[in-house]
């Protein structure tokens, strides 16, 4: 109970740019999975390569990232991902699920 509470969500995409099936791609078309962790202070999302046949995510295949600092940006409009060094988070992403 002393751990900081977080929530996780994910969303699949068929491509790096919006397509007609970006909203709801069929499993066979999924190429990227956006994994999010949300805490009280931030929402961090990595869009990673995904193999729909093996269900494996490639944590070294980072397509994009999002970082929202919620105290300053509660509506998630200012993505500051590129302003930070992400080596620590990328290492965390390589941990088993």
């Amino acid at each position: 109970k002393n751990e900081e509470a977080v929530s996780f969500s994910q969303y699949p995409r068929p491509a790096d740019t919006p397509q007609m099936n970006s909203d709801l791609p069929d499993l066979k078309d999924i190429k990227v999975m956006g994994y999010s962790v949300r805490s009280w202070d931030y929402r961090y999302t990595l869009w990673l390569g995904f193999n729909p046949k093996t269900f494996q995510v490639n944590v070294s295949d980072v397509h994009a990232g999002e970082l929202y600092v919620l105290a300053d940006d509660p509506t998630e409009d200012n993505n500051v991902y590129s302003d930070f060094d992400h080596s620590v988070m990328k290492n965390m992403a390589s941990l088993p699920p």
Partner: protein
Amino acid sequence: RETRNVLFIIADDLRTSLGCYGDSVVKSPNIDQLASKSQVFLNAYAQQAVCAPSRTSMLTSRRPDTTRLYDFNSYWRVHSGNYTTLPQYFKDRGYFTMSVGKVFHPGIASNYTDDYPYSWSTPAYHPPSFRYEKKKVCKGEDGKLHANLLCAVDVAEQPGGTLPDLESTDKAVQLLKSRANKDDPFFLAVGFHKPHIPFRIPQEYLSLYPIEQMTLAPDPDVPKRLPPVAYNPWVDVRKRDDVQKLNISFPYGPVPEDFQLRIRQYYYAAVSYMDAQVGRLVSALDDLGLTNTTVVVFTSDHGWSLGEHGDWAKYSNFDVTTRVPLIFYVPGLTAQYDWLGESTFPFIDVLTQSEYHFKYDTVRRQLVELVDVFPTVSHMAGLRAPKPCADVSFQEELCTEGHNLAYTFQHVETG
């Protein structure tokens, strides 16, 4: 331990646009009244913001990477693992379990049976009028019928003279009456179709939200630094007849401002219409003398973006699309038992009565998830919560990837 009945209510695409979540525009007196006698989780999140993956995840208490359901096209029992569902868990422990409306996502995602007979004691009920939901049943300004996004209707003129959520509420009340005097406890799940698009709703609810009082989303533009992969182009909205006439460019839009205001007006009206059905349902508990013995859970499968970030859909990881209402009424715990026969949840007609003012007495601000619902409902109803899953649990039929939130009902939140 004493077992309690469960009334599990799930709305479709309902974000936290409720009075009890601080929304000052919406009128949701019946849910606010339920919340005032419940524990309200202010920061609850879905695991994937689309119907079938979210519902399957919540009802099995497994994350999408364990159900391996990211679209609408497979049944978890044959696709990933024979996971026990929340209603199945109750059914296996002597409950009579019933499904009304959209609880599981219909179709192959629930084996075309809503997972009957695993999850339910009797085949699931679906409102017959839902077959018209996407048809040309909305009267346009030209007097003809269209398949519109904005579809306020005279219910009497609709096919069958009714709407799906009206039918579902009637059926649910009928089932409650049939179970009121039985010895075995019940688990009744009621899935409302609104405020999902199209906004086919009784026209009188529009009057609650005069268009001149509607405002745009605080951030109606696509954020400049949003990576393209994170954006979704809300194709389902674009397909509706009235939206097609707007000739909105693909993929980024935008929607004309006057139409944005109308979408927001209709969404809020759909919430009030759904709120009225919740009011009818929980007031029936009162009438049947069941409020002292029934846990009520109210939630949604995910949220919906009402123009924030230039988006008009779910299908993303944004807060507005993943955050959901989560409300637990537990008699004797979140509210005192009613021994005097007074009404706990009298129906509030939002069209004629003043607003209900929610008091923030029993809210929790900590982050929780929809995978927490299964163990928490089980515990609060008097069953044991399933044990936590191992890191990899494809072979485990019964376990939870969530947390039992029961401790939150008895401890003051700090920090």
